[in-house]
């Protein structure tokens, strides 16, 4: 990616030491993280994080949809009339969501049932729409892919943290970790799991604290007067 990044840096006349691609990557993952900083697409972040596995599958779905839709929107950016760009974006996003949904139904029907309507709801997920509108419409295809991946990873990071914490506190074990490492870690013998964190209120409170933690590590610049 370094070579591409360099190339973009030069062609766009903004060759900072890190290059445009790398900068975009950092923006999406940390400085402008879609969930913790921009607070977009929170619905799914709350709904599917009751276990780590759900959270990661959902993140994969979003990563796929946002990368592909950014690519297509960016390729078509000069051919799309301004007035109908929203509808075009929604149609592109919906297409990829359908692709992923069918894929999930075919290969992983159990997960498809567990995620319920939330895969379909990626269509109205503000992150995907927001990146298409704010980034892919103005930038060349390769850079848009990088931006899609960066935001997808940023989203996955937050979802992974919340999913891990909620499953761990709520059940005393993390299925996916046990499955991957063939371990039998299960604290529920001596630890009374706090079921509340699995239920809806736990999601809100966990995300609230996580956002506060991120704010504490890196104080936001434009939060003045917001309440």
């Amino acid at each position, binding site marked *: 990616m370094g070579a591409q990044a360099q190339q973009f840096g030069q062609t766009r006349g903004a060759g900072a030491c890190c290059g445009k691609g790398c900068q975009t990557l950092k923006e999406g993952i940390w400085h402008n993280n879609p969930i913790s900083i921009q*607070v977009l697409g929170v619905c799914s972040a709350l*709904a599917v994080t009751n276990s780590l596995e759900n959270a990661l599958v959902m993140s994969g779905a979003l990563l796929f949809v946002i990368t592909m839709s950014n690519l297509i929107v960016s390729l078509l950016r000069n051919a799309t009339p301004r007035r109908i760009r929203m509808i075009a974006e*929604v149609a592109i996003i919906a297409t990829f969501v*359908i692709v992923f*949904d069918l894929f999930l139904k075919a290969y992983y029907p159990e997960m498809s049932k567990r995620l319920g309507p939330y895969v379909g709801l990626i269509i*109205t997920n503000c992150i995907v729409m927001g990146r298409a509108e704010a980034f892919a419409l103005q930038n060349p295809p390769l850079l848009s892919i990088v931006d899609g991946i960066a935001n997808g990873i940023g989203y996955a990071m937050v979802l992974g943290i919340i999913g891990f914490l909620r499953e761990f506190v709520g059940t005393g074990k993390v299925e996916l970790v046990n499955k991957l490492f063939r371990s039998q870690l299960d604290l529920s013998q001596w630890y009374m799991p706090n079921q509340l964190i699995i239920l809806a209120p736990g999601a809100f409170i966990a995300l*609230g604290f996580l956002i506060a933690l991120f*704010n504490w590590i890196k104080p*936001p610049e434009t939060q003045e007067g917001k*309440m």
Partner: protein
Amino acid sequence: MNETHALLIVVAAIFTNNILLSNFLGMCSFLACSRQIDTAIGLGAAVVFVMVCTTTLNYFIYYGILVKDAALCSMDLTPLTFIVFIAVIAAFVQFVEMFIERFSQKLYYALGVFLPLITVNCAILGAALFMVIRKYSFLQTVGFGFGAGIGWALAIILIAGLRRKMHYSNVPTPFRGVAISMIVTGIMAMTFLGLSGMVSIQ
């Protein structure tokens, strides 16, 4: 087919299965528009109206056209569900906006400004998808659309009131803004959870 009475579904969708507090749908506009009570009421009313109409409309389209061996088209078009639903919602919202702009200026200023926001409100699409997943009948669909809309409106109005009060509290700096709203919403979800023994819909 599930057998719950339509009126029960209305009550359940407002209190026990609140679309915002237990299904997390419509968070984006919820966080953006819950600073003022007036705005919250306007947006809530618009959501109730659009939700009832679009879930009903989508019900007819889904069972009339999309499913296999439906009345109008015998092909199985269910893979297109998402794209059809979102198109119906967008078209309906656009239509209503033009309609009320032409016929009632007053209503347009009260409600119309919120309409474009609603197309991308995931609660609307979510309600339509729940209707499909839970296999509701026609009456149940109308009941669910209405109840879910009222439930969403109720939640956003309550939060708007709480956020107004929060202006006077001394919130620790990292929690200011979204973080504290999330936690307050969580506590509100907890109180709604207290009602969950009453009725339940799945």
